[in-house]
């Protein structure tokens, strides 16, 4: 079922979206290497995806507090609406404990499912909770369409992931260019950007 529709556009039907594929993820690999350089440090990591035992097991190699945001549960509430009622405040949609300063934010492909308004709101909320030098990792679709609902990413190794897509429907992808992402997420600079062979652009951002 489609989780998100962009501006009332009618998504073209596709039967090719469901399934899984293995991805080489060089930017994520670099990130893991950076974290491993300071094993004594305790990291605050926010996973915006749904709860995943695979992710918890992978990051248990680090001293860390691992926050699970399950952003997909509140995605529609981040989007711009025509209604007069103000949208729910971001801290209500994505609560974080007082005093937490995030060192790493894992977005997976969720940014693609936010409009520019929602993306800016999310970025603003996160920026107020990040530590200096914090990292943000994300995938952005560069093809015309993407699965109608976000998929799941299984971490196979520091340099490999499995992208699992449960949704056979597709919707138009926003195909956010780098300039747009940096405009909507001010304060974050692209440190690495890799176009993966399946058309996903892998981004690694860092705050100053």
């Amino acid at each position, binding site marked *: 079922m489609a989780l998100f529709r962009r501006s009332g556009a009618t998504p073209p039907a596709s039967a090719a979206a469901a399934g899984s594929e293995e991805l080489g993820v060089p930017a994520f690999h670099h990130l893991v290497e950076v974290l491993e350089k300071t094993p004594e440090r*305790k990291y605050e990591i926010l996973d915006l995806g*749904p*709860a*995943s*035992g695979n992710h*918890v097991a992978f*990051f*248990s190699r*680090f*001293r*860390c*507090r*691992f*926050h*699970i*945001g*399950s952003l997909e*549960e509140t995605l529609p509430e981040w989007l711009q609406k025509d209604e007069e009622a103000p949208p729910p405040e971001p801290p209500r949609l994505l609560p974080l*404990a007082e005093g*937490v300063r995030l060192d790493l934010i894992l977005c997976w492909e969720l940014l693609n499912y936010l409009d520019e308004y929602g993306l800016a709101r999310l970025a603003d909320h996160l920026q107020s909770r990040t530590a200096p030098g914090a990292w943000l990792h994300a995938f952005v679709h560069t093809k015309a369409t993407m699965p109608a609902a976000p998929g799941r990413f299984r971490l196979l190794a520091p340099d490999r992931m499995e992208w699992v897509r449960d949704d056979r429907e597709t919707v138009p992808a926003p195909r956010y260019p780098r300039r747009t992402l940096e405009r909507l997420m001010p304060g974050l600079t692209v440190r690495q950007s890799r176009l993966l062979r399946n058309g996903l652009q892998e981004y690694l951002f860092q705050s100053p």
Partner: protein
Amino acid sequence: MFDKSKKTSSIEKSQKVESTPPPAQRPATPSGQTTTIGPSIKLNGELSGDEDLLIQGEVEGNIHLKEHNLTVGEQGRIKANAFARTITVRGELTGDLTGAEKVTITASGRVRGNIIAPKVILEEGASFKGSIDMDAKAEAPALKAAPKSQSA
């Protein structure tokens, strides 16, 4: 069984607290002693004990089992902070969990809160929103702070 002296406890609907649950529901325990809070029981207050506990009913408050195992069954609905040696959630729980050894949320489990434990297992399909402190070097301060005087 439970020391509820710290808060006013109430059993809204009286029902016998079973001490021998069906084998399929019984969590593993070295002593084999497990108490079950049945599905029609509602408890408000502080629970503590020196044996394993399976909750299939509703509990609000705090749960201290120290060196024993806590299981929230499929029908269990908990609003409480829980401290135990191992905690397994198959039902719903809102609150903070401190496991001295391990916390497991099974595929049917739904948890909102924070977890501190040296080992945390989220089964595929488990629902969880909150934080997991996986710092193996960190101790479980809340567990250590659990009052020693409370016993079964």
